[in-house]
């Protein structure tokens, strides 16, 4: 039956989705209730005193005005700083699409049923994509809870774009992880490559931001994290070309995974 793998995947994933969502949401609440403790003008002065490399490492570009607001503080304190944390969940989910089941042997049982390999991948990809949306919704809920209980003046709607921008980012990371797992076959190998990929992207983003105006600046362009900049999103709203880039690349990665998985041995 069409959708059976999708439904089963959701059934087996919702708890992890809630755990991750609640955990990240708690971090968001913590950052929000810390807002009154800071004077934003002092914050701006502090940021101005930082060298570019430090600003880059916490995800801040040149738009310091943005960060001298309550929303900007949350953008730096939570969304900017946590880029690598947001990458962990989609990596875990991406590994589950093929690698975990192949390593454990359950993929043999699943693929001995009347179901195409492509359908297994697409339905699992969609289910884990939905779980990413669930995690992001819980994060957004955390921002509201922080405002409610912290008595903080915060325009949560302005942060909605920064929050929901996480969805295409997480889906892209999941798609990249899936392709790496499909190519590498073994879970441990795939996990090593994905970890290196994410850390290298973070380093390239940092170098790109820190070295603006130098020959090293273009390095940031090839990092997927460069296209998720909380300050830019806060200033400009959804940056549709970037979102289209994430979505387009995710589709390409999905198609590449389907192509390769259809042609290779399972669990060897």
């Amino acid at each position: 039956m069409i959708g059976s793998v999708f439904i089963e995947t959701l059934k087996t994933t919702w708890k992890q989705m809630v755990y991750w969502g609640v955990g990240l949401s708690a971090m968001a609440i913590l950052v929000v209730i810390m807002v009154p403790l800071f004077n934003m003008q002092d914050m701006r002065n502090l940021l101005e005193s930082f060298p570019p490399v430090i600003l880059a490492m916490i995800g801040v570009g040149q738009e310091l005005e943005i960060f001298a607001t309550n929303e900007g503080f949350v953008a730096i304190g939570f969304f900017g700083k946590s880029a690598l944390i947001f990458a962990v969940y989609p990596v875990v989910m991406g590994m589950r699409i093929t690698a975990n089941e192949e390593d454990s042997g359950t993929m043999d049982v699943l693929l001995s049923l009347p179901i195409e390999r492509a359908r297994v991948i697409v339905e699992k990809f969609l289910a884990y994509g939905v779980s990413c949306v669930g995690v992001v919704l819980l994060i957004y809920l955390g921002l509201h809870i922080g405002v409610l209980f912290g008595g903080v003046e915060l325009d949560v709607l302005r942060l909605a774009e920064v929050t929901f921008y996480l969805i295409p980012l997480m889906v892209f990371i999941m798609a990249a992880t899936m392709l790496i797992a499909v190519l590498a076959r073994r879970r441990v190998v795939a996990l090593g490559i994905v970890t290196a990929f994410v850390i290298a992207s973070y380093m390239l983003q940092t170098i790109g931001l820190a070295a603006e105006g130098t020959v090293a600046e273009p390095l940031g362009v090839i990092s997927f994290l460069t296209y998720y900049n909380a300050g830019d999103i806060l200033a400009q709203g959804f940056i549709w070309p970037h979102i289209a880039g994430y979505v387009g690349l995710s589709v390409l990665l999905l198609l590449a995974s389907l192509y390769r998985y259809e042609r290779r041995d399972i669990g060897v």
Partner: protein
Amino acid sequence: MASDSVIEISGLSKTYGSGDKGTLALNRLDLRVNRGEIFGYLGPNGAGKTTTIRLLLDLIRPSAGSARIFGLDIRNDSVEIHRRIGFLPGELTLWEGRTGRQIIDYVGSVRGDAKGIAKHADELAERLNLDTSKRVRDLSSGNKRKLGLVIAMMHSPELLILDEPTGGLDPLVQQTFHEMMDEYRDKGKTVFLSSHVLSEVQAICDRVGILRDGELKAVESVEKITNVEFHWVDVTFRDAIPAGLPQQLEALPSITDVSTNGARIRMRMLGDFDPLLRAISSGYVETLHVEEPSLEEIFLAFYSGDKES
């Protein structure tokens, strides 16, 4: 038994890896399994049994050759084939956090008839004395195996492909399994099973194929293969092996491979026990142990020629 083939394998080969590091796991396999028979696929570990099964299921792709099940190509028509077969892997792994019932429902929903399948699954579970309310991680290896059998059989497939089906099952459940296989055959369905348990093969199989080092060495009826059945016999004397007994045993036409170790004498015996019992009666026999030969040993005896065969 109808003579039409359910499985037709032609020149099927599989090499893992490539170049000098490649390992030939299956070499130009030609085999036909007929409708309504229970076919035993035998061989030692690493002979290529599981590779053959995984090729038939389209889990791995052949390096050469082709195979058809129900006249359908294993690659192009795999979904239709899988609809009509049931499969039990040798090393069964199921979703650890799910209960047997949840897995049965999941597999049933993928097959597209969850309700109808679940009813038959309940009957099978009851017959195998399986509690489907437990999580897989809480099941013993034998109960996991039972769950695997339920999943393989719950949609009443036309063809069952079973890799070492009774490993870990207790003797009573093995007996139930044998009865189920007989019923399958009576319904005109086909079973392709790999095994290395002689008694199981003798009890349920019609024909056997013997695989060794990736090559099919023989396809024979079970009667023919097991006609050359022999035993390993260990005799331990209380004091010492009577003088001249090893030579006396060697001279018997039904005994070979005599070896001694202290007061213990070991031999390979073909046929009746009486000549052996008469020969050893000159000493005080403390223990006598009779060991069933492995299938490979029977196969080697069958093809290398034995004293009496």
